[in-house]
């Protein structure tokens, strides 16, 4: 396990939306998917995933449904709604703009001022 990066404030929601956009997942599945995509580099406090899931569902960005897990257990599956898809899109755009802005600021050398 390599060095892990703490999750940036406010990015958890975005990651959850991205995770479930690839297909319905239960809570633990969301955690695994995020860790998998990030190459095990993100540290998420597992319990804090659930308030975020509830909040996103409350806002209508994801929907939930009870179903059966791989190991034949009852589990709650979350999937992205249309509103969630729009939200993910705009969040992604915002994030990219922000990231490139910050990156360009950090690249600045004294000659360029």
């Amino acid at each position, binding site marked *: 396990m390599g060095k892990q990066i703490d999750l940036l404030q406010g990015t958890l929601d975005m990651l959850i939306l991205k995770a479930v956009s690839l297909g319905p997942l239960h*809570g*633990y599945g969301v955690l695994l998917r995020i860790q998998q995509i990030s190459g095990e580099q993100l540290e998420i406090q*597992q319990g*804090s995933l*659930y308030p975020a899931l509830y909040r996103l569902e*409350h*806002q*209508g960005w994801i929907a939930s449904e009870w179903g059966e*897990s791989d190991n034949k257990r009852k589990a*709650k599956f979350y999937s992205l709604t249309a509103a969630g898809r729009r939200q993910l899109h705009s969040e992604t755009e915002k994030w990219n703009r922000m990231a490139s802005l910050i990156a360009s600021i950090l690249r600045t050398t004294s000659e360029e001022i």
Partner: protein
Amino acid sequence: MNLLTRFLSWVKWMVKRQRLESEMETEVRFHLESRAADLVRKGLSQQEAMRQARIEFGGIESHKDAMRASVGVRWWGELGSDLRYGFRLLCKNPGFAAVAILTLALGVGANTAIFSIVNAVLLHSLPYRDPDRLVRAYFNEPGLGLRDVRFSKPEMDDLLTRSGVFEDVTPIFEGSENLTGAKQPERVEGVNTSFSYFSMLGVTPQIGRLYGPQDFVPGVAPVVVISDGLWHRAYGADPNVIGRTIRIDGDPVTIIGVLPRGFRHPGPTTSGDAEVFAAFGFIGAPFPPPLRGTRIFPNGIGRLKPGVTLKQAQARLTAMAAQLRRDFPADYAPQAQWTIEIQPLQETLVGNVRPMLLVLLGAVILIVFIVSLNIANLLLARASGRQQEMAMRLALGASRGRMVRQLLTESMLLSLIGGAAGIATAVGTLGFLLRFVPSNVPRLNEVRIDWVVLAFALLISILTGLVFGLAPALHSAKVALTSAIREGGRGSGYSTKTGRLRDVLIISELAFAVMLMVGAGLLLRTLRDLLQENPGFNPTQVVTANTWLGVPNDPKTDPYLGIPGKVAFDRELLRRMRAIPGVEFAAITSALPTTNSNPNAVGGLAIEGFAIEDRPVESSQDLRAERIRISPDYFKVLQATLLRGRSFTEGDEDGKQQVAIIDEATARKYWPDRDPLGRQVRFGKDPTKPWLTVVGIIRDIKNDGLDVDGVPHIFVSVYQDPNKQVSLVLRTSLPAALLEPQIRHEIQSIDPGLPVFNVSSMNRILDRSLASRRFSADLVGGFAGVALLLASIGIYGLLAYMVGQRSREISLRMALGARRWDVLKLILGRGVVLAGVGIVAGMIFSAATASLMASLLYGVRPHDLVVFLIVPLLLFAVAALASYIPARRATRVDPMRGLREA
């Protein structure tokens, strides 16, 4: 955000709380077990894996709590626990809880009761069909300064046909009638109208039928409708009363219907509700020919056509009146500027009691303010004691908002318990209270605690809860963390922040108390002035009684026809009265002082036009005075002062020179620069009537009410101008109750068909005429007393608390050489300064608002110097006393204690 989605999700949570809680549990467990399974796969033991999974997950309960918060349901769970905690706190401090709940019950109860009256009297629509379209029509002569003069049949027809704004119009006659045929002749209030009266108001009968346009006759219809009250009282609610013939003023009439229980005639009630209703055609005998100048109708009400606004109708009527003045110049003297005015019927019924009710409402609202400020102070004292608790909560992670909410929940709990107690008090005492409400307040039978009143009570409770809860709550949350933990076990001192907030509360409380006391002072002073007012006569040892000779519609059946018939009755009556042992003098009047009983009364005052011999006819238009018919001994019975000339004698009778006695007001008004004695006057416009010679001048008698000045009166001899309304005044040392059977016996020995009513002492009559002022003065006075008490408790509580908190400091000061006097000065000074600021603020508010009460005052200006001097002095004295007690306790602090603890 999508509010609807969120709302639906919240509702889902609220409704399926149990299931969702268990689902949450399942979901978390699934996560933990899945994680544990993965960990086992990585080689951990089952037990170790589960432990590891739990650690990675974090605090399960706090995450669950966060999940609930995410969907907005945590709030309710917390509310429940806050309420339970608040309730336990109240139970732990029964003294505080009792004071708070009792004062709140008083405040909310008083508000509920007074508002229920305001609601029924002022706010509710009248209980008739489409009440907004009902209006009262006034005929005015502004050029002569006259309002509400009588009108004629043609003028009424103009309203109906020519104006085009009325759907219906009826004249209204209200007055006494003799009801005979039952065991005892009874005097009842009767209402006579045209045939459309009931259809206009939209009434349906309880039994039988009501008369309508189809019953029209030119003169008098031989049918009556009676009230539910009379039906029960006189006929035992017998349904066979329909078709029965009774006698009203001697006329045989048939009862055709009984009105429903709640029906009341929309007019003034002087001595009770109208009980007998009859309809007239007004164009045939016994009515005079319907000429434009024959103005016989005292009152009129009408129903506007649908869609016609009051403003449109008024504009149309004003224009029509102008046109009529041009069309009939002989009937409308140009200088009178005769015109027509309409007012909503509701306004005419309740307009005169509105100021009183609003002042009472203002008083109870001030009381509830004072109550809540008082509780705020108590809570704030408690909050200072609870700082430790609050600091602990903050340290353990409670948010400020969360703490404010908890404290607000506690005060809301308190205010709602107090409010419920208040509503219960109001419900329980409303009937009792209504007995003291003066009978001139209309619609009291409609007063009840309905949902509007309950909503108002709830609103008041919530507002007081906010007022007294918010300040301490915000304050605690702010102060807690900074001070309490640092100061540890010893309660924080009298910190400046708490102190300042409490000072503001006390000052506002005192200011409100000042306003209430000033209001009460003004009302009480008015009442006292009126009680001490010289009515122009001596009311003690005077007994009064009334009878009514009846006005049969067929003159041939009238036993008291013409002057001789009535005078014979009057003389016989007086002879018999004088013969009663213990009666010194007896006299007759047509208008008992302060009762507004004059049958010719227009708007309460019988103002008739008259002429003066040596004045030109045109100017005689504006000569008006109230005519009162009296027998010779009247002034002797009342012990009124004859200033000049002579009283009437037994010889001032029909056929002799017609005589009159005027009062000072008449003399001043009509003969300001000449001697009125020997001058001649004549009532009405009929030039064939004889002139009356002024033979005497008396000092003004307050005939129209102790608070009515300057109405000119002309007294005439009852032997020359007798009246059907006969009021007796007897000078006697016997009480009214003892004389009543004898008076009844004597009157009914003359005529067994005559009713005898309202036998009472003159003092009681004067007293009753002040009932409405007494009621408001007593009520506001009582509230002012409560306010004074609460304010002094407040200032005492504040200083006592301060002494307790600063006792260490005080003992140190004393150990270092401060004298008792210095300590006394320290504490007392604080109380005095607070009281001073509060009183000054209150005086400023009072001065600004006192003029709102002007219409309730008589002889006292709204900025009465005495009231504005006594109130601050009284309150200041009480506040100083309330400060002195804790201040003296401060001087007893043991100086050694401070040293020991230092």
